[in-house]
């Protein structure tokens, strides 16, 4: 957006009432649930039980404490891995976006690791870090860090040059420039990357728990899979989806708090 453009409208016209969005989501969920139930009953195969059976299994697993204990283990892995990724994403991404030399030096590795299937590193982590929490954190990092590095770098590069020039004219040093101008200006795009990173971190968490260190929700899935307990596998899948949605909602909550200044018209286009 050019700063020369006239000021944007204070409130964007909304052609769709806000109230209609939520019911539409619920209708979609309900339709999915019905479809699952019908297909599950019609198929009659053990690996795809109907929804009602899955929900009953989930309730039983919740009642005997199996879910909660493992969920907390998984959330701990997720939080730690994501925190490390986020820190790396902000620091490395900002450095890449701001300094051409850093980008030239690191860019090829970051893009390589962004597209590399993160699980191929699992044996390495297993050998080096052992089957403990550090391996899972490493897998979460491999899944989520690089997308945040890349989006942060892009966001920083796109900060309007006139804002940087303005801050320099008031004597801003490099630290002030980054913390007071560049990161706030880049925050809408950075947070879009953080949202993607959060989703990938959940995937990394469950994969790490299934294939490296058998703990948390991943352990239940693995055990249930080995005993061909389709209902338990899908019950855990529901829990994982809930974790993913909740964590992304958390990012969106932070996003709204931090980027309330972005005009609605600009928001709709991203």
């Amino acid at each position, binding site marked *: 957006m050019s700063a020369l453009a006239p*000021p944007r409208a204070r409130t964007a016209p909304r052609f769709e009432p806000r109230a209609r969005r939520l019911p539409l989501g619920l209708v979609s969920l309900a339709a999915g649930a019905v479809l699952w139930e019908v297909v599950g009953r019609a198929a009659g195969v053990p690996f795809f039980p109907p929804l009602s059976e899955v929900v009953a299994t989930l309730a039983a697993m919740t009642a005997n404490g199996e879910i909660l204990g493992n969920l907390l283990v998984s959330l701990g892995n997720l939080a730690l891995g994501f925190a490390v990724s986020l820190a790396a994403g902000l620091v490395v991404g900002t450095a890449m976006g701001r300094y051409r030399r850093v980008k030239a030096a690191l860019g090829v590795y970051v893009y390589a690791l962004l597209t590399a299937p993160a699980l191929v590193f699992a044996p390495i982590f297993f050998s080096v870090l052992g089957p403990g929490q550090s391996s899972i954190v490493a897998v979460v990092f491999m899944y989520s860090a690089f997308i945040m590095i890349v989006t942060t770098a892009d966001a920083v590069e796109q900060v309007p040059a006139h804002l940087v020039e303005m801050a320099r004219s008031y004597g801003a040093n490099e630290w002030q420039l980054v913390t*007071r101008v560049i990161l706030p*200006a880049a925050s809408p795009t950075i947070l879009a990357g953080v949202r993607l990173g959060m989703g990938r971190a959940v995937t990394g968490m469950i994969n790490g728990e299934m294939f490296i260190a058998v703990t948390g929700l991943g352990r239940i899935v693995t055990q249930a899979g080995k005993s061909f307990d389709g209902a338990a596998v899908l019950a855990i899948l529901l829990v994982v989806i809930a974790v993913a949605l909740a964590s992304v909602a958390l990012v969106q909550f932070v996003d709204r708090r931090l*980027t309330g200044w972005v005009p609605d018209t600009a928001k709709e286009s991203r």
Partner: protein
Amino acid sequence: MIEISGLRKTFTGQDGAPVQALGGVDLTVRDDEFLTVLGPSGCGKTTMLKMIAGLQTWDAGEITVGGRPVRGPGPDRSMVFQNFALLPWATVLDNVAFGLRLKGVGKAERTERARDLIAKVGLAGFESKRPGELSGGMQQRVGIARALAVEPQVLLMDEPFGAVDEQTRRLLQEELLAIWEANRLTVVFITHSMEEAVLLGDRVVLMSARPGQIAEIVDVPLDRPRSSDVGGLERSREYVEITAHLWDRLRDMHEEHRAAPSEQAVR
């Protein structure tokens, strides 16, 4: 006092060919003078302003402000930008206090000074608004308040009213005159409007393009304060004559440019 001597700058153009933006500029700006700089696009007037601000390097020559050579931005100079360059996430108050905050002025003091300047530019009551909620004219008032908040000796204005509509522009001109008349400081004001240059300036520096050079410096012997009777001033003989003279010169420059179309424009 600003002293500029032998200032030269050559850029590399988009096609790789060198473009001489400034071809040896000598200029003295007196203390508390309101100097306006006028010229066709490509005459290097903004480049020169950014050099005084310490935002742009040059190849040869020297700039001193108050006797000290310019080596970078400094607290003695502050700049007002054509596109306002406000922080869109910050309130009017925080935008105005931005320069003070960078200098480490405490919160209570910078808030007080910012409020004071916000009132001075006529934006009292808008302290907690964000730039996106303001009109262009109001945004530039914030830009001016921000520049004055750091109490500079020199105010550098880069076509500050170029991005607002004509009516707002006239109001802003009168307000700027009133602020400056009440609290004098050295101003270098870049514009592409002859009327604006004459209305505001003690002297008008006319620059020519390719290479950017000073073509003429025109004295504006109009009485001050001017803010109280801008309309009468614009009907005065001197105003009309100086404006007409500047237009004659500018038109000649444009015709020369048309005669040499191969030359490339610099900003």
